[in-house]
Each structure stands twice: as C-alpha cells, then as structure tokens.
C-alpha cells in the first residue's frame, strides 16, 4: 500500500537517481581507468613526422641508423629504409600507367643510379618524358597505438613503453618470429648477431637523453622530425593537428604514429 511517507521517500530517491550524471553508469575498461588515473600532462607520447616532399633519397638516414644502432652494415636488414616510387604514363599520355618501386639495400647508399632493378636480372631505365610522378618515401617503425606485433608475442618480450615506443627485450625474445609476420608494415626482422627480433625503436637511448633520433639528425633536408604528441606546443604536434597528414595502411586499425606529409595513393 502506498503511504504518504513512502511516496515522498521514493520521489526523493527517484529525483536523486535522475540527477546522477550519465558518466556514473559508464562501465570502465582497465585501459580507460589507467588513462584517467595516470593522466599526467607532463607525460610523453613520441610521434614521428615524415615530409616526403623534402626527401631527395640521399639515404644518409639509413646509413646513420645502421651505424648508431649496430645493425650489421652489409647484412640485408635495416631498421629504416627509403623507397623510390616512379609512376609512368602510357604512350598516349592519358592515364597513369605503371608504378615502379624500389629500395636498393634499403637505400643505405642512396639512389646512385636512375635504373630500377625489377628483379630476375631485369633492369628498367625510365625515360624522362615518361615519368609523371617520382618521389621518395622514408619508412620506419610506426610505433602503433594498437601494435599488432605486441599482441602476438607469446612470451612478453615485445611491449609498449609508457611513452608509446614499442621495444623488444633481447634477453627475453625466443625468436619465434610471430611479430615479424604480424607487422603489416614489414619493419621487423631478425637481428643476425643477437638472433632475436629487431626493429626501429625511435633511437630510445637518444630520445630519452633529450636528443633527436640518429636519422632526424642525419637528414639534411628536414624530411624527418620527431616530437611529443602530448605537448600541444610541440612543432610536430602542431603540424599533425593543423596540416593534412596521412598514415600508412590505416585500414589495418593499428593506429600508426608516424605521420606523412605529401603521401601518394601509390605508397603502400
């Protein structure tokens, strides 16, 4: 039976419940809770910006990276590389026809010939008048916010540090190669000396000392920049937030943190 006392009490309870914000009913995931608890504006999230308009394919970044990170110089592995894209048109000059892409030795020695190695001993020398577009695209680890390589590691040897950089524990890696297969960008390889998985780590030893990465310092043209996305006044952050930037293979859902200016649809 509804008494006056009950009615007033229930009305007050109902009003109190209605006045609660919607956020009180939100179910928090551990990730989200962590982000709220540890949300410190002084923290760092390293991001990279590549301006492909500025790259001339000198390959000094690749050389510096190999020396800095002790990647065997003559082995066919590298943490960063530069790709050359040449897009030619057909004879009637109507439509874009063919895309040629190469990266001899990862561009460790730059592009010191106009010829493109098509494989199987075939060499192609594009004629100047046939070239519609030709440009260079530097590649490196994207330090994804949703790294596929980390999720597949069965032993916890590869992980994402709090600043967003994905690192590999060389003592813990068993060399199973799941991460090498898991990376959609193909940035991982087997280190021939340490016999573990290896990849670009944004020169972790340098950026943690306040230096720039070896490739950023080596680039004469300013085509490579590293910044902190959690600092709104950072020069790189401002470019990412205000200019038209692209990322590689967005459809994989990896949320890459290497941004490109002047990306073309032919770049994969």
């Amino acid at each position, binding site marked *: 039976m509804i008494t006056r006392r009950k009615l007033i009490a229930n009305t007050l309870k109902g009003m109190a419940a209605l006045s609660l914000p919607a956020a009180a009913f939100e179910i928090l995931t*551990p*990730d989200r809770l*962590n*982000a709220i608890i*540890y949300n410190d504006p002084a923290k760092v999230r390293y991001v990279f910006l590549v301006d492909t*308009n*500025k*790259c*001339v*394919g*000198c*390959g*000094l970044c690749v*050389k*510096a990276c190999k*020396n*800095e*990170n002790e990647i065997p110089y003559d082995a066919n592995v590298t943490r960063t590389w530069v790709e050359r894209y*040449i897009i030619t048109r057909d004879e009637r000059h109507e439509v874009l026809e063919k895309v040629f892409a190469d990266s001899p030795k990862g561009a460790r*020695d*730059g*592009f*010191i*010939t*106009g010829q493109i190695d098509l494989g199987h001993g075939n060499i192609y020398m594009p004629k*100047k008048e046939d*070239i*519609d*577009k*030709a*440009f*260079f695209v530097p590649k490196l680890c994207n330090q994804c916010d949703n*790294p596929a390589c*980390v*999720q597949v590691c069965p032993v*916890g*040897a*590869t*992980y*994402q*540090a*709090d600043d967003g950089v994905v*690192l590999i*524990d*060389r*003592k*813990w890696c068993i060399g199973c190669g799941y991460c090498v297969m898991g990376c959609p960008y193909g940035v991982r390889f087997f280190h021939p000396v340490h016999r573990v998985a290896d990849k670009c*780590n944004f020169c*972790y*030893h*340098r950026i*943690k*000392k306040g*230096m720039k990465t*070896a490739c950023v*310092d*080596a680039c*004469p*043209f*300013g085509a490579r920049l590293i910044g902190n996305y959690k600092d709104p006044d950072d020069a790189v952050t401002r470019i990412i937030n205000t200019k038209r930037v692209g990322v590689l293979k967005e459809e994989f859902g990896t949320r890459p943190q290497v941004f490109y200016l002047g990306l073309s649809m032919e770049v994969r």
Partner: protein
Amino acid sequence: MKSHVWRPLYLAAGLLALFLIARYIYVPKDFGTGERGYRYSFHRIGNEDEWKAFKVKYKGTEYCKDCHSDKYQQIMKSRHAIIACENCHGPAIDHPENPAKLAKETNREHCLRCHLRLPYPTSGRSAIRGIYPGEHNPGAPCSACHNPHKPQEGLR
C-alpha cells in the same frame, strides 16, 4: 578413502607445486605492466633501462664545433651547412679518444647520393644541381676539384 584416490591427487599437487616453484625461479622479479596494461605492456621493466643505456655514436654537429671551429665556420657559410659533419666524417663515438681519427667518405658515390641528376618531378631531388657520372670526369674523385666545405667558391 582408498589410496588409489589419493595417489593421483598427490601427483597433481606435486606437479602444480613444481610448476609454481619453477615459475618463481625463472620469471624475473621485475616482470610487470606499464600504462598500457597486460595487453600491450606486460614486460620485464628492467629492459627499458637496458635500452636507455645503449651507446650513442652520433654526437651531432654541436659536438664538433668547439675543436674544429674553423671548419665549422667555413661550412656554415655554405649551402652544405645543412649536412651534419658526421654524415661524411662518420660517427664521432668517443672521438678524440676513440677513434683518434675519423674515416671520412671521399668516394664519388657519397656525393652522388644527392648530386646524381635524377629528373624527378614532384621530388626535391630535381632541384639539386646534379651530374651524370658517366659524362662528368668519370673516375676522378669529386674532391680533386670541389671543396665540400666550400661548394660555391669554384674549383680548386
């Protein structure tokens, strides 16, 4: 209860204890997670410091500037000022202690990284003055005529 019930139970308990002891010994004490939780940052925390302790080899142009101020001033006036010293002279590492002398790049291929003529539209490469190495004094070292620290001041 009969012993044939207890025996497999003891065995299972023993195996479990063995597994826990082995895990306690084998897994490092600092195995844990960072901000990204178990999905992305389950790792040996000490590994972050191992990477931070990695040796820096490229010290940057500022490192060279004090001892080699004459060369520094010279190149800073030229269009080659954008090229870091170590790009041609090699990583400083602990120079002058180790190595005492840096091995500089003097071959034609090093200059051709930028100065090979590649007529590429939509690339900055075509804006750089370049040569066709087969036609421009083939075989001769670039530095025989050009001073890389003073590229605009004519031939030697």
